C-alpha cells in the first residue's frame, strides 16, 4: 500500500547553533531557522550562514548590512 508509507525517521526541530563573533563586526549564525529580534519579531533564515548586526547602525536590522565598516570613517564606497 503506497499511501501507507511513512518515513523511516522523524526530523526533529533541534537547533545545532554555531555562533561566531567577528571582531568589530557582526555575529555569524549557522544552524538557525529563525531569529527573533528585540521586538519579538521572528525573521526566517534562508541562508547557510547569516550575519547579525551588533553595532546597531544597520538599516537592515536584525541583519548586518556592512555599515559598521564606515562607522568613524569618512563616507566612501567602492563598487
Amino acid at each position, binding site marked *: 500500500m503506497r499511501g501507507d508509507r511513512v518515513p523511516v525517521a522523524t526530523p526533529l526541530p533541534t537547533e545545532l547553533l554555531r555562533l*561566531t563573533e*567577528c*571582531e568589530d*563586526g*557582526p555575529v*555569524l549564525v549557522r544552524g538557525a531557522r529563525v531569529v527573533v529580534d528585540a521586538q519579538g519579531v521572528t525573521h526566517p533564515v*534562508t*541562508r*547557510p*550562514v*547569516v*550575519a547579525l548586526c551588533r553595532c546597531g547602525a544597520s*538599516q*537592515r536590522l536584525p*541583519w*548586518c*548590512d*556592512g*555599515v559598521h*565598516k*564606515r562607522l568613524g*570613517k569618512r563616507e*566612501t*564606497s*567602492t*563598487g
Partner: protein
Amino acid sequence: MHLPQPRGPSSTAVVEHLRQPSPGSDAQLRTVGLERSPGITNDEDRLLALWVLQGLNYHGYSGVDPEIEWDLAVVQARTQLEAELEEELLAAFTPVVEELLPEARRDLTGTLFSLPDRVAASAPSMSAWARSSMTAEQWREMLVLRSASQLKEADPHTFAVPRIPGRAKVALMEIQFDEYGSGDPSALHSELFAQAMTAVGLDHSYGGYADTWPAPVLLSNVTLGWFAGRSRWAPAVVGHLTMVEMTSSLPSKFYVAGARRLGLPEEAWRYFDEHVEADAAHEQVAVRDVCGALVADDPDTLPTLLVGAVAGLHVEGLVAELVMGAWEQGRSALRIPLHPWVAA
C-alpha cells in the same frame, strides 16, 4: 551565444579559428597565428581574443564545436595571451603585494578589510552615482557592463573549490551554496541578475552585449578567467572573491536606493537588495574562514592570494573610471549605445 564581432587582427584570428569545422579532425596542427605583442591590458583586440578563448570553458558559442576547448592551437593562443597578461599585471602588482606582506602575515583579517580603502581608492564610485544622479539609461548601461561577470556570477570562483584544501574548501562552498540560491533555483544570483535585465527591457542571454563592452570590462573578466583557469592561481581566485564580497554590501544598498529613486520595479533591484545582507555575511566568511584557513594551512599561498585581491580591486577601478568619465560628460559608457528603452 554568438561569437562577438572581432576588433582587430588577434580577435579576428581567434574567431576565424573557432569557426573552422571539426577541430582536430585532421592530423594537421593549425595555428591561430598570434604575434607576441606588449600592452595587452589596454588592447581591446587582444583582450577580446582572450575573452573569446576563455569563454570556451564556460558558455561556448553557437556553431562552434565544444571539442575545440582543448584544441592545441586554442590552448597555445590562450597560454600566450595569458602569459602577456600575467607579465603586465605582476609587474604592476608585485611591488604592492610585497609592501602588504609583512602586515598581512601579522594581521590577515585587518589587512584584507583595509584593502578596498587602499587599492584603487581614488576610483570614482558608480554606486554613489546610482544613489544620487544615475539616469534610467545609465542604469541599463550599468547592467550591460556588469552582465559580463554577473550573468555567470560565482562560476569562475567555483573553479577554486577542488584546488584548495579542506577547511578553506568547506568555507568557500558555504558562500557558493548561497550564491547558487541556497537550494532554491529562483534565488540563484545570476538568475536574479537576469530578471533585473529583463525588467528594464534588456536581453539577459550571456554575452548578448559583448560587442558593447569597453576594454576594462574585458580586462576585468579575463583577469579572473586567467586565475580561475589555473590550479596555481586558486589562492588568487579566493583573494578576488573576497574583494568582490567586501565591496558589495554597501554599494548594493546604494543601487537599491537609486533604483527606487528612478521608480524601477522591484524585479529591477531585487538582485542588489539580496546582496546587501548576503554579502555582509559572505565577506566575513571569505576573510576569516576561506582566506584565514587557506593561509593558516599553507602560508605560501598568501602572496598569490594578495595578487588576486589587489588585481581585482584595480581592474574594477579601471571600469569605474571609464564609466564615470563617460557619464559625467553625458556620453554613453558603451562602445555601441543601446537602443532607447521604451517601457511597456
